[in-house]
């Protein structure tokens, strides 16, 4: 189990075993898997910062807007757990707290928990097809929201209609397949440009 599941190589440099070599599991047919190219660190950072900037847009009280940063963080924690860890989650969480005027450390704690969940589940999540991964992602995003909700309930008591905000986790999980294909696109490029290649 341990040996067969590391698909992209957790340090992101080489791919040791393409998925076609994996033994078939129960109820899951043998799918051809593409060998991914190594990821560029610049791409990781730019997507994380881009997601953070998306969060900074003046969304107001629109409850459905997903937490783009949490989603991107989960993606890189799952695919590159050696490069994107809890430290990054913590620091960006503090920035988020300053922007939203919430208690210092609230988002930091939430993002740290999400990051831990994603890192400890990363082998299992990668094992599933993208659509099934959304369930895990939904659970992780929910943990983040419930963690900050718990802090707020502890600090100041319930606020009217706070649970409506949990809708953003649903939306976040729904856009996970899109985000997945977008963030994996640079690694799916062919190594050499070839005009005769069909794709």
């Amino acid at each position: 189990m341990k040996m067969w599941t590391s698909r992209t190589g957790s340090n992101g440099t080489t791919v040791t075993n393409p998925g076609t070599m994996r033994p078939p599991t129960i109820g899951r047919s043998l799918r051809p898997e593409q060998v991914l190219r190594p990821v560029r660190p610049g791409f990781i950072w730019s997507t994380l910062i881009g997601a953070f900037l998306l969060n900074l847009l003046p969304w107001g009280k629109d409850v459905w807007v997903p937490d783009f940063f949490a989603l991107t963080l989960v993606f890189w924690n799952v695919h590159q757990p050696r490069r994107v860890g809890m430290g990054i989650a913590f620091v960006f969480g503090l920035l988020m707290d300053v922007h939203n005027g919430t208690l210092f450390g609230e988002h930091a704690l939430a993002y740290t928990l999400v990051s831990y969940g994603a890192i400890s589940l990363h082998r299992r999540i990668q094992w599933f097809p993208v659509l099934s991964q959304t369930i895990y992602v939904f659970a992780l995003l929910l943990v983040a929201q419930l963690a900050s909700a718990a802090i707020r309930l502890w600090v100041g008591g319930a606020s009217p209609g706070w649970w409506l905000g949990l809708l953003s986790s649903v939306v976040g999980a729904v856009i996970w397949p899109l985000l997945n294909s977008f963030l994996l696109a640079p690694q799916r490029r062919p190594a050499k440009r070839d005009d005769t290649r069909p794709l």
Partner: protein
Amino acid sequence: MEYGPPPLFNQGVSARARLAFFSLAAAALIIVDRQVNALDSVRNGVETILYPVQRVLLWPRDLVVDVAGYFQTIGSLNEENEHLRRQMVEQSERAQQADQLQKENDQLRSLAGVKERLAVPSQVVVELYESRDSFSNKIVIDRGSHDGMKPGGPVIDESGVVGQVTRVFPNSSEVTLLTDKEQSLPVQVVRNGLHAVAFGGQERGTLELKFLPANVDVQGGDQVVTSGLDGVYPAGMAVATVTRVDRDLKDQFARVVLKPAAGLSESRLLLVLMTKPPPLPLPEAEQRKPANERPNSKAVRR
């Protein structure tokens, strides 16, 4: 469940240790930030770095608003113009009356030997964005300590009180809206002069008068204004209108629900009054009459 890497590859500190470290750090920060204001300088520093980014990110929204405004039809502009003119005429009458009343009031005050009320300096500010936090009602405005903002200043718009400046950064400030459940202000019912305290309501976008007896003389439609008892909000500014009074006999208090007078989320231009917070009562005076002298202990909450 443990699928750790083989020990021959050094992976640094384990994930659990990191989790423990960062969670404890976050918890410590939360507790410190809640109890004391020691982290305000850190917050100020971060906000100063973040501020230009935030301003740039407001451009797309402002652009959309501007373009939408550009394509507004002449008809709606005419309508708005008509409405504004009507409002101006109505208000000019009031303004003239106000001048006269002011003079009369000054004379009466000087006759009665009452200290003259000072004009409050004010500053027009623009609402930048609303906090996304679903547990509080806060907005951020575009003036900060560089422009002389101080925490505690009341914020109003053209139709009533909006809230209070609660945190000041170098270039921007946070305003807690009246509808925030941690916000409160002393008010007065116009019809009968009843004093009460308005708190942020249970329902979204409402206020509530608390601790009024079940048989209190308040009806739907009553106007509620600031009473000025706290020394923070000037007296007589429109706050809200009573929409519902529940007199449940099980409770000893009436539940009075109000609708704020200010267009709490629509108006973008606001006015901050730079009132000086009243001096804190002296310790001796506080000991002598502990309850009466501190009506604003909640109103200037940070």
